[in-house]
């Protein structure tokens, strides 16, 4: 069988992965979340439900937020992917303004939903630099947070918008 490869551009770095069932290979049934976590070691992307119901696994695919637990890795061939690990400055380690605002607002409790939420906020503010409160809530409505950190997350989003003015 001819060797089949896919290329994922994750956080600005190219990964060439072999399709197959062997160790370190990407099975056609593997999700993007699984591939990021298991093949690339990018465990910042969390799997809360693995069924596309909780938002924890959100990453940016070609700039748009997607649920990586119901996106197949093979569908992402040749596409740009940004995960939580890709937001900070790769050279200085300086946090992205959204990350910094979450930190300052204490916008996490157990923190398991936090990476996914930050990715959705990142996408929202890229498309809509000055969203209304309703738009913010709508953009985050697919994210499950059982600790109830919603109010501090809304504060963090407001803080990010304030900084960019």
């Amino acid at each position, binding site marked *: 069988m001819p060797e089949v490869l896919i290329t994922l551009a994750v956080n600005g770095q190219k990964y060439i992965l072999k399709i197959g069932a062997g160790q370190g290979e990407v099975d056609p049934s593997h999700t993007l979340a699984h591939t990021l976590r298991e093949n690339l070691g990018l465990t910042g992307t969390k799997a809360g439900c693995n069924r596309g119901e909780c938002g924890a696994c959100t990453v940016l695919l070609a700039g748009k937020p997607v649920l990586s637990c119901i996106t197949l890795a093979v569908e992402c061939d040749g596409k740009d992917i940004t995960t939580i690990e890709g937001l900070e400055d790769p050279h200085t380690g300086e946090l992205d303004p959204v990350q910094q605002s979450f930190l300052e607002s204490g916008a996490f409790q157990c923190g398991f939903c936090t990476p996914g939420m930050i990715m959705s906020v990142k996408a929202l503010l890229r498309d809509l630099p000055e969203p209304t409160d309703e738009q913010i809530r709508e953009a985050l409505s697919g*994210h499950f947070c059982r*600790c109830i950190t919603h109010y501090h997350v809304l504060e963090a989003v407001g803080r990010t918008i304030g900084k960019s003015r």
Partner: protein
Amino acid sequence: MQKDFRYIGKETPRKDAASIVRGKAKYIDDLKLPGMLHARVLRSPHAHALIKEIDTSRAAQLDGVKAVLTYKEIPAWRGGLPSHLGVLSQTVRFTGDAVALVAAESEAAAEAALDLIDVQYELLDAVYDAEEAVKPDAPQLYAQFPGNLFPLACPWMGPNSLQQVVMGDVNEGFAQSDIIVEGSCKYDNIPNPLPLEPPGVIVSWEGPDELVVWSSTQAPYFLKMLLYYGMGRINVRSISAHCGGSFGTKAAPWPLVYQAAALAKVTRRPVKLFYSKAEHFAAYTLRLGSTFSGKIGIKRDGRVMAVEGEWLINTGYCSDAAQGMVAVGCGEVQLLIRCANWDIRPKLVCTNRSASKMVRGYGGQELESAFLPVLSMAMEKADLDPFEFFKKNYVKPGDDYYWRDGNLWTCRGTDYAQAMEKGAELFGWKEKWKGWLKPASVNGAKRTGVGVGVHGNADVGEDVSEAYVRLEPNATAVIYSCVSEHGTGQPSNLCKMAAEVLKLPLEAVTLTPPDTLVNPYEFGPVGSRGTYAIGSAVINAAMDARQKLLTRAAAMFQCEPEELDTEDGMIFHKGEKGERIPWKALSVEHTYIGYGRFEPDFSVPNFVMIFVEVEVDIETGKIELKRVVGATDVGQIIDPQGLRNQMHGCLGSAGIDSAIFEESILDKKLGRFLNTNMLDYKWRTFAELPVFDSVILETPIDTHLFKAVGFGEIVTSPAPSAVLMAVSNAVGKRLNEYPLTPDKILKNIR
């Protein structure tokens, strides 16, 4: 009192803040060990059955499969209270009960092997309702528990653990009552606390009796003790990862440890077991089912004269220390109501559904959510404002109550009336309260109503904590306390407390990893005990270490240690502008280790009052939660952001919404849950957030150096009954059912 703190009460980023926002915090599913196998569990499709035959040969032959275990070949480890559970059993007692275990090179191979295990079951009659289970002809779950009733003793709470609320003379109390009501209310929709992260463990045998366990428990030492007793006195090293939410449910994941450890033993490889969300829903932890049926007598002025009734508790297929929740529930109801004459008798019943285990609220939420609607009937009859009633009746300093250890304790806490008043003021209670079963406002089909609930817990001082603090010559300090981060910020708060005592920069104070090999005994951050119990141990350890440092320095200064002080790693004579020497000047080869210990103290109940405003559409039956106000007094705020977050938690973890839409729907014909996914199990989204305000007072409480008391665990508890009250008032009819989904509203008001 001293209020010019450097860190206590100030907003400081949590120690793990950067790692969380960068995605670097490590949770259990992020960990890998070399050679690690993956485990899956075959689960019963029947609610009650006997395994007649089980053939694992096809599964064992699948590529990558390393072990398949059934009840025939598992170690004799035991669990449950009293001990009644093994790793696997020939009898399955709920849909989802473990039938066989598989370990394989990959999760996919393990999963595929499950389909190749052939099982023949003999079906047994099942029972789901507690009322049915106690009937003489009901199917029996365990031969040793006739009538499906568990004994109520909870030995780890002491030899006389609280098993009922019986005191005074109820007949006399009823004779003196102006108003007597009788009624019943069920809080048995068994909502799922459902932390986002499913439960998981990794285990590795390092010797025949040496087990290392990585898990997401917030209380690794507590887990170590459970495993020590359950697995035959083996030596366990228990390590916690970051915990992706627990709400009590992950404190004791011993069944997962047993399953993984059995597989690790036969394969001689590390094994990881991480539940799927479906398993998390169907085979992990639910709230207790709770029904209160009884009689309550009150005076017209709101004094409660007598309470008599039965508390029927459905714990599912087993008791994993449900007796502890019964004990605490029996204690907490006494904090709620000052009354001299009680006779509440609990019955702890097993049924063929997945288990109710430890959950935030811990018996108190379950009892009160069923008890308060009945009590409300008395308030209604006497036309008493429930806010005034609670203010009058909530435990006050000098009041006595029996706590979980069976001992009579005298409250030496705070009178929370001021916090109640401030909460009512902010909420606008006096303007919005129009009387029982009267809406606050009417706008066409939309009716608003208000309700209020109260709750407190004296477990803030439960159990034992130990800590060390090690001072290093480079002016840093390390706290040894076996606590993992599960969302409350407790590890960072302990650093704040130690930094305050030692007058060190917060960055100079760190905490050891949550690992029982390194740390002394610690019961764990449960029951709001982190601030008072764990905090006391850390404060004492820091003071002890400081004393040792200054004792050594005193020789150099030629004075008494008490004449010296230290700040920012410098030692100096108090009140004099003399020499300041750095710690390292004493010696660079000397560390100073302090020890601190906390002994249980049940005399300081904490408190929260929750006010809710709902809008009910009487045409559609939909409830909108408009506004919530939470009021408390914590003595001294340690971390404002974390505390506000905890208060907001009232909306999560099977709290307020267990009165509105959260329920585990059990199909009693099929014997299985129908909503074991996150679409069919309803949860509150960002789009439906109510306005939420908090009142947090700081009246110093006589606990430890910082006069603070813990808070987080209690906040969900008063909310469900407050919602029932608010909705009843909005629609003008008493609704005593949980949750108030639109069908129930419409059925009752049409």
